[in-house]
């Protein structure tokens, strides 16, 4: 069964360092999402791609976060510099197109010390 792949699964970093997360969506899925989930809360959208284009990054803290999906397939989410409040699970999801189920990866758990 096709899955959304994410790496690393766990990342521990010190504040002010740079960190990057990678996501490979299900093959053929045009839409890719990055969500952030703080412990005890629901996922919150950071950025949404349609193919290689950003369609929603209104909740992305652009002073320190960046995301790209250069060839419209896999994607990278970067944080620089990391802050203590960035500690969370970073979830990647994909969908074929339009309205419907989002398929989530297992997430990347970030701890900032």
């Amino acid at each position: 069964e096709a899955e959304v792949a994410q790496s690393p699964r766990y990342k521990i970093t010190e504040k002010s360092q740079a960190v990057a997360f990678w996501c490979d969506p299900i093959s053929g899925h045009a839409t890719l999402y990055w969500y952030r989930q703080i412990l005890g809360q629901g996922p919150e959208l950071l950025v949404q791609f349609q193919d290689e284009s950003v369609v929603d990054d209104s909740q992305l803290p652009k002073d320190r976060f960046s995301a790209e999906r250069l060839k419209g397939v896999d994607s990278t989410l970067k944080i620089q510099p990391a802050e203590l409040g960035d500690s969370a699970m970073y979830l990647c999801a994909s969908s074929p197109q339009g309205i419907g189920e989002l398929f989530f990866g297992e997430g990347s758990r970030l701890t900032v010390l």
Partner: protein
Amino acid sequence: GESVGLHLPTLSVQEGDNSIINCAYSNSASDYFIWYKQESGKGPQFIIDIRSNMDKRQGQRVTVLLNKTVKHLSLQIAATQPGDSAVYFCAENSDSWGKLQFGAGTQVVVTP
């Protein structure tokens, strides 16, 4: 242990009983709704979805009810099993791009 963050509402249910998880959504223009199950340390898994032109949909052991008048969604799990212990999230979609907005979640604990 996990002690940081908000405390999720918790539903404690005995094995074999039926569970009902409730969700109030925010946008009256939302036209698609979905329930996810999330086990500790894992990504959300799809349970069941429903579109706004329906008020009930059934799956295997699960039923989703939608009341658009009061913007309320519920998930019913029949004959709850230990493997059903998880956090359950409802989510809504109100744009054409497919973005889902998630609720706060409910922790379901199944006791023997």
